[in-house]
């Protein structure tokens, strides 16, 4: 484990199961070797609700979070349990700006065909971890990967998401290692 790891803040937004941020933090720590820190929860952002679509605008939530003061961490991952969208898409599992500072994921659709039993719940949490790792890597400027065996492969559906393994191809692994090198901002 590197001592000079970057810090990732995990923010629960609105009403979400307690276990979800913890699982995501553990995966960030385990798979990317970064420090994952649970931050204070935030309230569901009512300003982002599109009443016609009955969905939350991921873009405006991201914009709001990006203007926030998260001085103790390098990057931020917000976790929600509402249906997220961006205007041209029917829905998104998560959203992040390439090379940005904040990523957002929703476990709302990840629970489909899951959460009935404890094993199903584990599946939903694994999906959430995959989406969180994927979106977080966009913050480190990783783009979509063509390998179906890599977490950076674009998964537009749950079957796609379930098919990809929890791990990165060797090219993306190398890229992440370089991109997440210690930032002297937090000695």
């Amino acid at each position, binding site marked *: 484990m590197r001592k000079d790891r970057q810090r990732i803040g995990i923010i629960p937004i609105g009403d979400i199961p307690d276990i979800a941020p913890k699982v995501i933090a553990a995966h960030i720590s385990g798979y990317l070797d970064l420090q994952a820190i649970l931050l204070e929860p935030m309230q569901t952002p009512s300003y982002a609700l599109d009443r016609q679509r009955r969905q939350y605008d991921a873009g405006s939530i991201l914009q709001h979070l990006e203007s926030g003061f998260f001085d103790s961490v390098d990057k931020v991952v917000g976790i929600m349990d509402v249906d997220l969208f*961006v205007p041209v*898409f*029917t*829905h998104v599992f998560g959203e992040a700006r*390439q090379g940005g500072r904040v990523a957002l994921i929703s476990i709302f659709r990840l629970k489909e065909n899951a959460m009935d039993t404890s094993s199903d719940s584990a599946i939903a949490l694994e999906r959430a971890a995959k989406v969180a790792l994927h979106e977080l890597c*966009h913050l480190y400027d990783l783009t979509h990967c063509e390998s179906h065996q890599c977490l950076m492969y*674009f998964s*537009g*559906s749950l079957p796609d998401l379930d098919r990809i393994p929890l791990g990165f191809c060797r090219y993306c692994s190398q890229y992440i290692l370089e991109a997440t090198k210690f930032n002297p901002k937090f000695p």
Partner: protein
Amino acid sequence: MDEKMSVMVVDDEKIVRESLFFWFEKAGYTVDTAASGFEALKKIEAYPFDLMFVDIKMPGMDGIQLLEKIKTEYPDTVVIIITAYGSIESAINAMKAGASDYLLKPFKPKYLSLVMEKIMQQRKLTSECNYLKGRLEKISRFDNIIGQSSPMMEIFELIPKIAASDASVLLTGETGTGKELVAKAIHAKSTRSQYPFIAINCGSIPDTLLESELFGHRKGSFTGATHTRKGFLEVVAGGTLFLDEIGEISSKMQIDLLRVLEEKTMTRIGSREPIHINFRLISATRKNLEEAIATGSFREDFYYRVNVIHLHIPPLRDRKKDIPLLVQHFLNKYSQETAKHVDHVSQNTLTRLKRYPWPGNVRELENAIERAVVLSDSRTLKTGDFSFLSTGVPGKKTPSLRELEQNYILEVLEGCEWNITHAAKILGINRVTLHKKIDRTGLRTLKK
């Protein structure tokens, strides 16, 4: 990994532009946006985008107008139309106008990903197809027509222009100049290139057989016609028919072909059923057809029908600059074919090859190089490898000294109207010696 495409999103709604911009950016594409059709055209002029996502409803220039402009000016750019539910009819119109696909807003992220995969596949196939077409074109087009002399450069420039039209072409030139190669090149560059190229040497086929070959026949139409057979005029379907030595065909055949060219229909021998045919005619001859018209052996109306475009292929002696290039080309060809390491021609030999008149033109040169490569034991071809260079022009005996003397005396005598005193003065000999020479060589018998 394939090179990522460049993408432009054209939409008057900022939020749509941004959403797609971020998605494409995360997917690793080079992406740009434009808020109007005008801005998009300005940007594409500066940078040729591979793919454009265009909203159908925009103020000023709408998506369909932009699509039409892009398809006219940048046909390689793939356009995907973005439309809202309720305007599917416009989306269908867009597809008719050349859009590759359309997306109904809002669409599933997975669907966009599938559309991108499909476009990538199509792009890969198009690129492979273009590469193979280019290879094929190179093989069949100019690879076998060698030349850098100005007459050949003019022909190279003319071939694409001639290929672009559908008019009949008459190729003239001596035997062995490469008329069939030029015909093939015209075919390969034309829109008919996907269809057959059929070459017939009219001079080598008897007239009755030529008729059957061209028009085909119905079963039982003549003795030996055991089954119905399509003629080349039908088989060529959409392609190019090359009639070599057209000056050799009979008047009857000229009339039959004239009718075919005018009516675009024909009937098989023994049949009355007219068959519609579609082909381009390229003819070739080494004869002077205008002289043949004057003597009545070639029909004038047929001549003007086959000679809409005339292209003369110069003889090799008029483009000697091409000889070293042709020599090297055939040397490479035959040393590869025979697996012999013969790759040079000595400078002295090359000079002599350039001086040689090549009555059989490029074909004769090719045969000479092939023969020399096959028989040579050395890496470099020398004068001795070309027997005709040491014996003179084939078919023309090198005169002896006595013959040269005889011819010269005769020339001088004729020039002086057999005035012996005058001729002896020119020749620098006395009159008695001249008389003796005239008697010895029997020139007196030639006095008119």
